[in-house]
């Protein structure tokens, strides 16, 4: 099993070793944030439907994973309004909490696997298992949305 912790994750996501040694904060847009004790949090957003159509809603993923224990939680919400005009109205029936079951490096990214915590939040025809790819170098997250793979932009 691959060892994964704060230091080698930072290598995976492309932050130099000097910055790691200094414990520096890298204030890059879209950078997942360390919150201590090998914990990493991120927030990513995509407009729905996808371009070139005007977005009606925003697909928001917010997660916090512990790289040492390979656990964590990710919330999935669809808010009314495009990403540049987002409301705080969550569209009913589209919110989920995903319990993280594994976290692994995958090339230059981080692969998070999880399962929807409440089976009643799983829609007909939807898989309860979820795989999310956090790619800091490209500033994106790839995650499923009812059978399709959606590319979200990391937000700081």
């Amino acid at each position: 099993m691959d060892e994964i912790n704060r230091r080698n994750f930072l290598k995976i996501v492309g932050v130099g070793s000097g910055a790691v040694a200094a414990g520096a904060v890298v204030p890059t847009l879209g950078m997942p944030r360390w919150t201590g004790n090998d914990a990493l949090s991120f927030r990513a957003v995509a407009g729905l439907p996808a371009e070139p159509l005007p977005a009606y809603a925003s697909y928001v993923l917010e997660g916090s994973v512990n790289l040492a224990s390979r656990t964590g939680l990710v919330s999935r919400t669809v808010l009314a309004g495009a990403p540049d005009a987002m409301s705080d109205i969550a569209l009913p029936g589209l919110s989920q909490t995903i319990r993280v079951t594994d976290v692994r490096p995958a090339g230059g990214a981080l692969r998070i696997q999880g399962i929807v915590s409440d089976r009643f939040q799983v829609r007909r025809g939807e898989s309860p298992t979820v795989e999310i790819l956090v790619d800091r170098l490209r500033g994106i997250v790839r995650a499923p949305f009812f059978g399709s793979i959606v590319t979200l932009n990391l937000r700081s």
Partner: protein
Amino acid sequence: MADHLDAPGLMPPGGDPSIDITDIYAFQKPGDASKSILIVNVNPLTLAPAFSADALYDLQVDTNGDAVAEIAFRFKFSALSGGNQTVTVRRAAGAMAKMKENSGDVIIADAPVSFGKTARITDADPYRFFAGRRSDPFFFDLFGFLNSFMFTGDDFFVDKNVFGIVLEVPNTALGAGPGIPSNIGVFARSLVPNGSALVQIERMGRPAINTVFMKGKAKNGFNRTDPVDDVEQFTDTVEDVLIALGGDPALAGVLLPDILTYDYGSAAGFLNGRNLTDDVIDIELGLVTGGGVTTDGVAAHEDLLNKFPFLGRPH
């Protein structure tokens, strides 16, 4: 999402969903072709507890095809007090109709708003009126739309409510008379105070024009524009989206101005007016995708009433 939650200016934070127009309908009264039923639904998902007492809900009627109203029906609600709210309805005609003001003759005064399952109907001959919480008649696979048109027939709105404003009018109140064409256009708008004036921050004619064709914060701009300026301001935008959807950009000339055309001499449905059971999404999908997508697989709701106020009891 005909026009539900269509613009950031109408949603929290900062916006008021009670003035968010979700749909408008115009159709012949069943069994009486001399009258029409006009419906304006607002407050998607009933996010707000009552109609706005600050705003003016304004149903505009264009009788000569110039995209400017010659007749208006205006609905002004009282403040919610003790769980009760009332509404006064005015009819304005002539140059007064297009004005952004609460003008016109009172045709119904202090009608009660219904918040429960029983519809409290006000009769004020020749008008009949209802306002209150009802089942949302709009039907659409919203998740399929968000999932890039991968429809599964899952009706997002089947268990949702809205606030409905329903007015039965004699066609003479829509301008009918000997030798006068029966073709009109209707659109609704929400006006809110800005100092001593009322300004328009929401409007709607046909379903899904703002939601589908305008982007992000530009949706606010669309809502604040009068339909008479639609062709000049939004044709390029609508054409671009039509092309992206695989449709014919020339259709922009039909979709704009955003006014629901209605011949009160005909019982035919959408694009002639709009009945509660008209599958407007299927019709529009076929049009805007050039026949590439013809249905979302969702049918009209079964809780509609066959008599006034026609909207189903609230869930």
